[in-house]
């Protein structure tokens, strides 16, 4: 195994990577760039979030390939597990259809932005490719006591002050988020018990509403349920349907003494109650 792993990650004498790592890179890198492009071209915010999460998993794999085991897993736990999940959570909270407006507030911003972006890219790529680096050393030596141990020596040694500052920052940020999203309650909180007591005191219905159609001989949403006496329960049909007048006539489905009456004529199925009194009655709860 040790031989296999060093085959994958260790650098060769000339400072280039092994062929295994090169394959991994050439498979992952195009996928990651494609995923990142989703940030520019995707319509739906959720798709953007998913593709960015994919890019971050790809980065984690590259970290591991570059002998940064600890960072690779932290990347997955922190970025994909927490940060992108937070993004998804907020997206679901604020409504996923929050899409871009197409009105340009600053004229020509799109072209300026494109130019600036491409320019930055060109400059950076130019610098990176033209710079001559010393022959890479590799982390074999630094990782002798396994990578997590090496990193933790530094974090709790040379950089312990930075760690503490960053920890304070994180706690402050969490508090700040609490303060920002906190809404003071304008009315007193009404508990489960109080609601139940109020219901009893009012003489209101204590049980959930009956589901439509269950006890009738029809399973549709617009057919009221029948009570034990065979009478239709008006409230069992959705209030929206009742107000729109789309409720089916219950009598057609009610239990009837006469077998012949049970045969429902086709047109009677479709009759709707448009009695205004009944509609008003539907608005109670």
């Amino acid at each position, binding site marked *: 195994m040790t031989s296999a792993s060093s085959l994958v990650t260790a650098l060769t004498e000339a400072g280039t990577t092994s062929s295994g790592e090169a394959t991994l*890179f050439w498979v992952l890198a195009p996928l990651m760039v494609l995923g990142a492009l989703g940030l520019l071209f995707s319509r739906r915010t959720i798709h953007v979030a998913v593709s960015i999460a994919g890019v971050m998993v790809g980065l984690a794999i590259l970290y591991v390939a570059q002998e940064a085991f600890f960072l690779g897993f932290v990347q997955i736990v922190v970025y994909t597990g927490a940060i992108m999940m937070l993004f998804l959570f907020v997206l679901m909270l604020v409504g996923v259809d*929050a899409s871009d407006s197409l009105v340009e507030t600053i004229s020509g911003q799109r072209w300026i932005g*494109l130019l600036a972006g491409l320019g930055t890219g060109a400059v950076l790529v130019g610098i990176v490719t033209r710079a001559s680096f010393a022959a890479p050393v590799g982390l074999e030596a630094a990782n002798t006591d396994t990578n997590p141990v090496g990193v933790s020596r530094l974090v709790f040694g040379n950089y312990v002050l930075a760690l503490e500052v960053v920890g304070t920052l*994180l706690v402050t940020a969490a508090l700040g*988020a609490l303060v920002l999203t906190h809404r003071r309650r304008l009315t007193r909180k009404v508990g489960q018990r109080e609601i139940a007591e109020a219901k009893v005191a009012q003489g209101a219905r204590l049980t959930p509403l009956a589901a439509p159609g269950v006890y009738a001989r029809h399973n549709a949403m617009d057919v009221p349920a029948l009570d034990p006496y065979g009478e239709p329960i008006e409230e069992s049909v959705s209030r929206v349907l009742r107000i729109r007048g789309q409720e089916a006539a219950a009598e057609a489905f009610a239990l009837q003494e006469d077998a012949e009456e049970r045969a429902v004529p086709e047109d009677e199925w479709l009759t709707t109650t448009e009695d205004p009194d009944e509609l008003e009655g539907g608005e109670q709860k």
Partner: protein
Amino acid sequence: MSLTNYLVLSTLLFTIGTMAVLLRRNGIIVFMGVELMLNATNLALVTFSRMHGNLDGQVFAFFVMVVAAAEVVIGLAIIVAIFRTRRSASVDDVNLLRN
């Protein structure tokens, strides 16, 4: 393959992140662009760490992650707060203090 390829990938991701920040209007997507830029620098840091043969670069990347987490927490809280009052996540609508 030399390690420069990693650096090029990192700059590409950084550029895409920059363009997302410059071009997109949805506050949440802009934020993801910022995250992508931070991630791209992390990749560069990890690569440099490997080039130099010491772990300081990885420690830097670790701290960047923590700061990014703090930033996201605050940023998303701001977006949620704005959304509550303005019913929109677009960055163009955040101009209450303008006039």
